[in-house]
């Protein structure tokens, strides 16, 4: 748990520094560029389809740190209009849930589809984004209840741990997400993104006699079906020419 926290901080910091670095660079470059750029530059030549394909890098890093399989997430977005993007994420995840008194294992696939709105006005020639987004998320997964402990608060007979090793298959969930994020073009066509997601469960198929404590793509399900998530992605804009 703590390890996870620290890791997230380090990654945050890393990104903050990265962004900072690119800023200093731009400032230097701008002096010589500014005159030439003003007349010719538009947001980006409209002769290209702007499709960006990305990979979440927080999961592989955490996978290395924790030494267990976590999952993989790919992102895909397409620029629809000046500030509007169709955006999607898809991937798979597996999570071993060690709660104090419940031990379970969840794994499955998920997909999210929605849009991003870029609220940041770029200087000409720049392609950074501070965006807000909405997603619809869907996941199909399975859950294994390994063991649970029934506490004896009076400590008369003692705590009792049952090991049912029960497998619940064919579970599913639908939810909505609100995204806040930041995209920085660090190299031409290469974007680093950091975003945070607030989630609300719409409906889920629960296992009988148990609950969905973790849903792939959704993360930990808190009380009232709320959740939070984040990702750090590195994305490449594929320059596909329009006919």
């Amino acid at each position, binding site marked *: 748990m703590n390890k996870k926290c620290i890791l997230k901080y380090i990654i945050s910091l890393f990104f903050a520094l990265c962004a900072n670095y690119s800023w200093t660079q731009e400032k230097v470059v701008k002096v010589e560029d500014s005159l030439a750029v003003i007349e010719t530059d538009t947001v980006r030549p409209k002769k290209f389809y702007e499709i960006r394909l990305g990979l979440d890098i927080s999961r592989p890093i955490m996978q290395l740190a924790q030494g267990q399989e976590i999952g993989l997430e790919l992102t895909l977005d397409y620029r629809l209009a000046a500030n509007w993007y169709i955006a999607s994420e898809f991937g798979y995840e597996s999570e071993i849930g060690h709660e104090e008194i419940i031990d379970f294992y969840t794994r499955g696939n998920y997909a999210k589809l929605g849009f991003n709105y870029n609220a940041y006005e770029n200087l000409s020639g720049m392609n950074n984004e*501070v965006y807000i987004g909405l997603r619809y998320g869907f996941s199909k997964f399975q859950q294994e209840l390994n063991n649970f*402990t029934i506490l004896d608060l009076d400590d008369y*007979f003692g705590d009792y741990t049952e090991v049912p090793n029960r497998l619940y298959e064919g579970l599913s969930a639908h939810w909505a997400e609100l995204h806040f994020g930041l995209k920085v073009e660090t190299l031409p066509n290469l974007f680093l993104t950091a975003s*945070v997601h607030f989630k609300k469960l719409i409906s889920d198929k629960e296992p009988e006699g148990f609950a969905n404590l973790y849903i792939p793509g959704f993360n930990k399900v808190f009380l009232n079906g709320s959740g939070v998530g984040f990702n750090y992605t590195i994305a490449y804009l594929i320059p596909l020419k329009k006919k």
Partner: protein
Amino acid sequence: MIRFYKNALFVFLIISLQSCEIDDICVQEVVTPKLIIKFYDAADREIEKQVDTLSVWAEGKDKLYEKVKTDSIAIPLNSAVDVVNYFFESSSLTDTLQIHYTRKEIFVSRSCGFKMNFILGNETQLSCQWTDSFETEQTPQSIENEQEVHLKIYH
């Protein structure tokens, strides 16, 4: 550019905040219920009757009650097995209550985990030294909360 960095700072702040997750704590008062026993008068079965110097313990365990004067007790059932023997001692006579039950685990929440509910079995029996007989409120008697009396013992 400065505005961009203000925005950026804000986003990073949010991300940093969410790095430490909320932990829900088990606050609901949902625990595995105990068996509630009430003592009644064997002569007039409607009237509650206290037991003098009552001692209660499960086989091989410490005393839960020792020489108390009461008309009702709450005793835990063992979640690990289907039968438990309880001893009731009053004025140097000891009765054995052999409680048979079936168990059903109920999921409560992430933080509270599971609790156990029980249904009393027909095989439940009481040796009658100082007690007269016993009776359940319903058949089959389920044990899901501690608000109601599950077992009546007449003496």
